[in-house]
């Protein structure tokens, strides 16, 4: 029966070596060539059915990795409650809610008139539907089985569940690249690594949560199809690619990395028919599948980001055809010359296409976008990455991953070329933008796992029992155990660091703030939700709320009111108009607000509690964006003092002290004294006493201020029914009053007649 197990283990394609050795590539081939005998022999005495134990162990480890990844993401839910975090997830939640209540076709054709008033937004055509459809499908299936789960809970817990699936697909991918031990290590790493947790914590219902799973799974299927050359694996890869296209805009990474891989294989003379089959099928079927998503549309054949894939497709067709011809014709020298010449020409054409698309248009367009469009530049996630972020998000993995890369390059084969290219491109992108650290994390986990696996194999394996002991290895068992202990300590510190980072840095819902007193008790600041619910319950259903674009999704999600601008930021001029309204004085702002039909204005003010993310701190960005569209009306230099400082106290510039944002933030703040040590009207965030304490409004009135003055809502007053005059009325009576009065009273006695008293009484 043991022999039967051994044969089964070998026949199952990519099944790994028997339990006795965590073997690298070389020892695997040796044990396989020798038959089932020498392989399991060392542990024959201890374990019967080693293949069975191996799969049980793998299953348990993967299950524990899933559990660890799931639990590690639950800090926010346990500390606060099951709530959607941040800004973008609120829009995703609202769309999913619409999908769950109205059905799939209603969602696909949804035109949202409650966002970007008065323009509206075509949601069906401007969103990646994968996330909403996944959540909606899970909700529907669970409700069909009569497990009644609210859609909000499905949305909150979707990302942690998919993190477990990401671990499993990383395991599969690393197992294809190296061996099963490295695969298990990679699965454990990616379950808890902070770089991935930051975007997939419970409550963060965003595209990246499912996109990383789709990415890893697509790459696994691609590696599998290049290895086997079978069309069915390639079709599975295309279907997984379709899921990725529906989930995230980062699918462009896949559609550029895979052609690059094929191109480098061609250059390295590793061309084989399997690569041809895999890539041609993948390109065609993947292309037509990716055009099914309305948001993507016809982009894959029009934009420059997709041209590399088309170029490589044409190149590989030409190469394969020439290979076929070369086999047929006998004129050797002429043929090889012809072959080389044509491939060089095709390569040159392809390189020029790459050069134009990457360095010419795309990269330049990207640089332009970063510098010249302030909206893109103002998002904090688009800043370049610092060294601290690398270590913070990846800990020791960032140090061991170059070692893994070196091992891969040293023992090169087709799929390790792929992972080397993946690593290099991911490192470049992660250095450009903080947000793209997320694409670096999976490859770092895989390569570090390979490095660790190699080290452990070297130092844990028992040399005496192998049939060929390695020649250079003459270390004593003591040194081996010391090295093993050190490695284990590193891994334990990694686990502690990951948990600490998750707990402290990435688990804040940012819709509920918490502060801790010096005796440890917790103070919850629930101002945001308080204000949004006030809006929901006390305003008309069709009221329009103006605020800065950061809060648009939250207002639409929680308060259910029409907003003017939100986080989608697709219309720069509309945002500039709102920015202009916030930075002008009250009269000019009132004109803009009347033209946009605004009923309420909402701002965030952090001066009472020292919250540094409030609108006064963002004010300069509002001015810059407004100046971009209306340079004659708004000038950024007007808001600074003559010395060039941005001050809110008496020395601040008068334009700043009279603008709408300033007045709305500090209305009645001058009467408030927070502390005996500071004067009334002391702004804790800017650490200054405000300059303009006596603020009066002509066209706005205060509607609501939350408990800690974080959110302030103002109602825009209608135009007055009757304009008050600002001059005294004219006197038109020219006759003297005295003469009339004496005549009438004298003739009739005491009875005053109507005419006389009327005349004297009128004025």
């Amino acid at each position, binding site marked *: 029966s043991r022999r039967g197990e051994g044969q089964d283990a070998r026949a199952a394609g990519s099944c790994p070596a028997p339990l006795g050795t965590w073997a690298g590539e070389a020892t695997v081939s040796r044990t396989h060539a020798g038959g089932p005998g020498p392989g399991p022999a060392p542990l024959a005495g201890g374990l019967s059915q080693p293949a069975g134990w191996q799969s049980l162990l793998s299953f348990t480890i993967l299950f524990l990795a899933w559990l660890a990844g799931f639990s590690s993401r639950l800090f926010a839910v346990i500390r606060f409650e099951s709530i959607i975090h941040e800004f973008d997830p609120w829009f995703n939640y609202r769309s999913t809610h619409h999908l769950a209540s109205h059905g799939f076709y209603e969602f696909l054709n949804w035109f949202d008139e409650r966002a970007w008033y008065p323009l509206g937004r075509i949601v069906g055509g401007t969103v990646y539907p994968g996330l909403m459809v996944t959540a909606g499908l899970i909700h529907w299936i669970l409700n069909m089985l009569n497990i009644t789960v609210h859609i909000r809970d499905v949305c909150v817990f979707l990302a942690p569940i998919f993190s477990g699936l990401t671990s499993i697909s990383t395991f599969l991918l690393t197992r294809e690249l190296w061996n099963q031990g490295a695969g298990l290590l990679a699965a454990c790493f990616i379950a808890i690594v902070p770089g991935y947790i930051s975007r997939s914590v419970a409550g963060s219902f965003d595209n990246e949560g499912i996109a990383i799973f789709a990415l890893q799974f697509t790459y696994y299927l691609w590696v599998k199809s290049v290895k086997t050359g*079978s069309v069915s694996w390639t079709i599975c890869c295309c279907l997984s690619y379709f899921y990725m296209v529906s989930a995230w805009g980062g699918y462009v990474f896949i559609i550029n990395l895979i052609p690059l891989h094929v191109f480098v294989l061609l250059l390295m003379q590793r061309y*084989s028919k399997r690569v041809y089959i895999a890539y041609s099928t993948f390109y*065609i*079927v993947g292309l037509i599948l990716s055009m099914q998503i309305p948001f993507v549309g016809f982009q894959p054949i029009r934009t420059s980001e997709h041209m590399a894939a088309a170029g490589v497709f044409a190149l590989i067709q030409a190469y394969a055809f020439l290979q076929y011809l070369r086999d047929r014709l006998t004129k050797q020298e002429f043929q090889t010359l012809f072959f080389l010449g044509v491939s060089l020409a095709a390569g040159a054409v392809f390189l020029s296409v790459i050069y134009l698309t990457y360095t010419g248009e795309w990269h330049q367009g990207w640089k332009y976008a970063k510098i010249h469009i302030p909206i893109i530049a103002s998002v904090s996630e688009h800043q370049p990455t610092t060294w601290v972020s690398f270590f913070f998000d990846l800990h020791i993995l960032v140090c061991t991953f170059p070692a893994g890369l070196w091992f891969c390059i040293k023992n090169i084969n087709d799929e390790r070329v792929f992972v080397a290219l993946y690593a290099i491109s991911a490192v470049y992108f992660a250095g450009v933008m903080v947000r793209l650290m997320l694409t670096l994390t999976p490859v770092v986990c895989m390569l570090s796992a390979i490095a660790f696996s190699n080290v452990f194999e070297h130092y844990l394996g028992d040399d005496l029992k192998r049939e060929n002991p390695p020649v250079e290895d003459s270390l004593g068992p003591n040194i081996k155990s010391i090295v093993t202990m050190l490695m284990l300590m590193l891994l334990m510190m990694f686990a502690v660091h990951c948990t600490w980072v998750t707990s402290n840095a990435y688990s804040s819902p940012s819709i509920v703030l918490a502060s801790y007193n010096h005796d440890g008790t917790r103070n919850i600041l629930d101002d945001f939700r308080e204000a949004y619910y006030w809006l929901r319950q006390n305003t008309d259903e069709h009221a329009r709320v103006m605020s800065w674009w950061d809060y648009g999704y939250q207002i639409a999600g929680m308060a259910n009111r029409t907003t003017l601008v939100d986080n989608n930021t697709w219309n720069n001029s509309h945002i500039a108009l709102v920015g202009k309204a916030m930075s002008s004085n009250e009269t000019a702002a009132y004109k803009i607000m009347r033209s946009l039909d605004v009923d309420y204005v909402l701002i965030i003010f952090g001066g009472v509690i020292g919250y540094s993310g409030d609108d006064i701190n963002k004010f300069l960005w509002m001015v810059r964006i407004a100046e971009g569209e209306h340079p004659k009306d708004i000038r950024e230099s007007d808001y600074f003092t003559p010395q060039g400082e941005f001050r809110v106290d008496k020395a601040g510039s008068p334009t700043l002290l009279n603008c709408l944002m300033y007045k709305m933030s500090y209305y009645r703040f001058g009467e408030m004294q927070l502390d005996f040590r500071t004067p009334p009207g002391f702004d804790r965030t800017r650490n200054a006493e405000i300059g303009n304490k006596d603020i009066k409004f002509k066209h706005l009135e205060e509607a609501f201020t939350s408990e800690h003055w974080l959110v302030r809502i103002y109602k825009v007053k209608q135009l007055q029914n009757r304009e008050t005059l600002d001059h005294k009325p004219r006197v038109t009576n020219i006759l003297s009053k005295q003469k009339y009065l004496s005549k009438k009273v004298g003739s009739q006695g005491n009875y005053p007649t109507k005419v006389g008293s009327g005349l004297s009484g009128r004025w």
Partner: protein
Amino acid sequence: MISSFLEQYMSTTLQCLKLLDAYLLYILLTRALQLSYCLLLRTFPFNSLLSGFMSCVGSFILAVCLRIEINPQNKGDFQGISPERAFTDFLFASAILHLVVMKLVS
């Protein structure tokens, strides 16, 4: 060169491969027809045009893959893929391709 190539081709290729090659030629002719329509008349229902193109190119590629996989000269490259398995893969892939093409046509 071309005549010697044709002669060698007729004598050395198997019957089943020649059948597949005839199918490939038919697809190429259809593609040429579509291209001439596009150039001469109009491209207005763009997604229908695109789906027609994709259908042609896709079927061509899948047939070429099938031909490569069942060619007995290539047995060394593809362990574990018998001709029956190759044909099943071809059917599965064609089914998916044409499903998507039908969706795109409308």
